[in-house]
């Protein structure tokens, strides 16, 4: 079932998109009709005008979904499932000819030769101006000047079209011709080209780890694929062409001799250390530039005109051959299209970081699968499931070992025959350490439960300790003044600022996170209970005194219920803040939990999982809040009516 859903996610998306469009249009129609009905009855600013309006909720949700589908290329994949594969083949051609374009003013601003000439001439002029007089005698200075002039002459010769060798000319014409051949091939169209069976057997787009299937699956794709394979050879050929003008041969030999002589003079002459190093540096700089010039990569500008024209022609042919693909890409694939990097074709732009809704659902189902052996869960832990929890684990966690230590008597010793007979104290120790099996109870398990459990335990502790303290702070001068500085000092510190300290002290186990969240919940609960307690009407307190209530009874029966609305609001806020803090704490350290999943997914750039965790957090937060709203409605119906 899941396999089928997963394989057909593009078709499922196609249906959902149609439904969304229908819902979007229908809700607007209904909304406009309803607006026409009510427009006369209500004035602007009347809060009644915000009530109802489910159709606008439908409109908003469907619009959001459509935007999500659009920018994640969900619409494109649903209706043009082959497009990405074709775009990938076009991208292959782009990738292959991009080095050639980079050498011409098509892929960059200048000819590569222009840049080389500029750089080399600048460096040579700089060397000419700064031959250090302390290291070179005036005779040598003169020689150096000549050497650099010779090298400048090399550049001038290479740049002159009249000096271009016949061999180079033929090679350039050959490349242009072959490029024209590729253009013609593209313009001729796919004709009888067929995708290979291997290509057709590839996993569909978005199903496997490889984002877009690499081998061409359409005839158009095959055409581009084969052209790009040929273009790769052409590119290699183009980069092998060198320009060695015959006029340069003598100068090159001369320069080589002069550089060798310079080196020898440095070796033979008795120069001090500083002068030697200055001479060597200078020689090396000259030699480096000379090697570049000797390489023959500078061409006369006009000599490359043929290749430029051929490349432009190939570009045009490519656009023609793409045909409808270009329009589809412009309409349904927002962003920078598909780019082929070394090993794979990837989606660029919004589709890169925004996974398709169906992919997110598929990832979620995959994570939620409790069958760990078959790839369910995440990092060996299920998302949300149940397990048998041994009661002894709970006992071992709750009971400290000193309970056994303070039991009267001694722990047993080994006897003279080398055997140990455990006594009552030994057994008690085993019990409090959780080593005695006491049966098991079913318990929730998994990443989600781990996160929820941490929040609930911390919140429970925060309520248990914070509410009484807050109530007393609301009514007692001592409690207020004694604890106020303490709480008000630590509370304003952002919880995440405490996290590194607390996680260092407690380690990455649950304790640290629970303590961190407890600190958050505790402060909120104290403040809300205190506000609620101090807001009790004096007449109610006086009435209960007159009715014979003791201080404790007033606390329980008057001040506490009076503060209950504030306390529940406090719990609602505390849940939200704890939830936010928890995820951040789990990102900092931990081996389970929603934040942990997101953090691991981040390190491997798995956008689907990142989005799944974000959605899980949002939904769980919403559920918490809905529960609290319901509790508030049920427990304090008197709120605001006192």
């Amino acid at each position, binding site marked *: 079932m899941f396999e089928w859903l997963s394989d057909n996610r593009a078709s499922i998306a196609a249906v959902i998109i149609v439904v969304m469009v229908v819902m979007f249009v229908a809700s607007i129609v209904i909304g406009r009709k309803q607006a026409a009905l009510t427009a006369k009855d209500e004035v602007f600013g009347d809060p009644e005008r915000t009530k109802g309006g489910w159709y606008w909720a439908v409109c908003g949700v469907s619009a959001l979904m459509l935007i999500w589908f659009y920018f994640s290329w969900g619409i494109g994949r649903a209706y043009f499932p082959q497009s990405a594969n074709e775009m990938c083949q076009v991208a292959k051609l782009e990738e292959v000819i991009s080095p050639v374009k980079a050498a011409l003013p098509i892929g960059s601003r200048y000819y590569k030769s222009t840049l080389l000439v500029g750089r080399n001439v600048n460096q040579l002029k700089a060397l000419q101006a700064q031959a250090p007089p302390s290291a070179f005698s005036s005779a040598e200075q003169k020689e150096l000047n000549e050497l650099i002039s010779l090298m400048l002459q090399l550049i001038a010769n290479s740049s002159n079209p009249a000096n271009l060798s016949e061999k180079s000319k033929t090679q350039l014409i050959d490349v242009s011709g072959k490029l024209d051949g590729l253009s013609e091939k593209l313009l001729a169209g796919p004709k009888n080209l067929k995708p290979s069976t291997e290509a057709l057997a590839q996993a569909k787009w978005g199903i496997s780890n490889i984002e877009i299937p690499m081998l061409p699956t359409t005839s158009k794709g095959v055409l581009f694929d084969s052209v790009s394979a040929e273009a790769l050879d052409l590119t290699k050929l183009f980069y092998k062409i060198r320009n060695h003008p015959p006029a340069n041969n003598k100068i090159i030999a001369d320069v080589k001799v002069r550089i060798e002589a310079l080196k020898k003079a440095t070796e033979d002459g008795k120069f001090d250390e500083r002068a030697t190093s200055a001479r060597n540096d200078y020689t090396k700089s000259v030699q480096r530039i000379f090697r570049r010039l000797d390489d023959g990569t500078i061409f006369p500008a006009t000599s490359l005109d043929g290749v430029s024209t051929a490349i432009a022609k190939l570009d045009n042919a490519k656009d023609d051959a793409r045909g409808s693909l270009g329009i589809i890409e412009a309409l349904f694939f927002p962003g920078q299209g598909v780019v082929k990097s070394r090993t794979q074709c990837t989606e660029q732009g919004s589709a890169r970081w925004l996974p398709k809704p169906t992919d997110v659902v598929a990832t979620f189902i995959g994570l939620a699968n409790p069958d760990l052996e078959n790839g369910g869960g995440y990092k060996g832990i299920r998302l949300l499931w149940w397990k048998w929890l041994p009661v002894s684990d709970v006992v071992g966690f709750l009971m400290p070992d000193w309970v056994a230590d303070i039991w009267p008597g001694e722990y047993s010793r080994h006897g003279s025959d080398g055997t140990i007979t455990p006594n009552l104290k030994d057994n008690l120790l085993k019990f409090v350490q959780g080593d005695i099996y006491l049966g098991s109870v079913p318990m929730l398990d998994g990443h989600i439960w781990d996160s929820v459990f941490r929040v609930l335990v911390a919140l429970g502790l925060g309520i248990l300790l914070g509410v009484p303290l807050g109530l007393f702070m609301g009514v007692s001068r001592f409690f207020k003044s004694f604890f106020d500085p303490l709480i008000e000092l630590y509370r304003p510190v952002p919880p995440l600022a405490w996290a590194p300290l607390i996680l260092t002290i407690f380690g990455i186990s649950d304790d640290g996170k629970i303590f961190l969240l407890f600190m958050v919940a505790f402060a909120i609960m104290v403040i809300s209970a205190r506000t609620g307690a101090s807001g009790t009407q004096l007449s109610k307190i006086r009435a209960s005194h007159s*009715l014979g209530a003791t201080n404790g009874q007033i606390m329980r029966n008057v001040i506490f219920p009076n503060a209950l609305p504030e306390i529940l609001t406090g719990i609602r806020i505390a849940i939200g803040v704890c939830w936010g803090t928890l995820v951040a704490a789990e990102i900092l350290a931990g081996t389970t939990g929603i934040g942990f999943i997101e953090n691991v997914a981040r390190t491997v750039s798995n956008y689907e999982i990142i989005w799944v965790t974000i959605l899980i957090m949002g939904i769980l937060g919403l559920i918490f809040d809905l529960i609290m709203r319901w509790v508030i409605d049920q427990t304090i119906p008197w709120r605001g009516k006192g």
Partner: protein
Amino acid sequence: MADLVCKDLCMTFTNPQTGSAVEALKDINLNLKKGELLAVLGPSGCGKTTLLNMLAGFLNPTSGEASLGGNLIDGPGVERGMVFQQGALFEWLPVSKNVDFGLRMKKTDPDESKKLVEKWLDIVGLQGFGDTPTYQLSGGMQQRVALARCLVNNPDVILMDEPLGALDALTREKMQSLVLELWKETGKTIMIITHSVEEALLLGERLFVMAPRPGRVHKEYNLPFAERGLTESLREIKQDKHFSEVREEILTMIWNMEEEIMGRV
């Protein structure tokens, strides 16, 4: 007997910042016998509520002393029941739980409490409202609950701080009858503070008119209208000539006091 007695009761409030002192009450002497109904009337700021709070035990007098049945008053107690202007009901409890609050605090047997609560709800005219949340009741009904809550504890004295002040005219009249009825049936000592001259005349068997700065008893009356109110219609009493005369007299008195205050300020 359980008489409410005040001897030279003085109350001075000192502003802790400025150190200036205000004499809220000066030399109040009072002897309220069991079963008497005292109404206290006076312009704003004459110390009516301060007097009541001292008798209730919420404030300690600066000098002088107050006692009930020979016992010095030095804190709130069940023997002095209170009824407040806004009812001061516990809105999180239903009517019956409000009424039996005092009994629950004493840990009275639940069955006995239940009987008592039903009896008193019956008397104040709220039979069948036991499970209703108090916030769903009208202002008049809330005051009935407050009365029942106070009476179920069987106090010696009932201290009422403008109990009917927030009610509409019609409800107010009905509640005035109820107070008189309860007074007659229970024979409790009642002290009622009010802003309304008419109410003071109708309810006060005895009437104190207080004057401000310092708060003191300006004039004392003994009036027949409360006794008559037990049998006659209150509306008829209001049209009585004697009633009108006393009302005018007191109104003039209070009017002059207010004028004096304005002049001084």
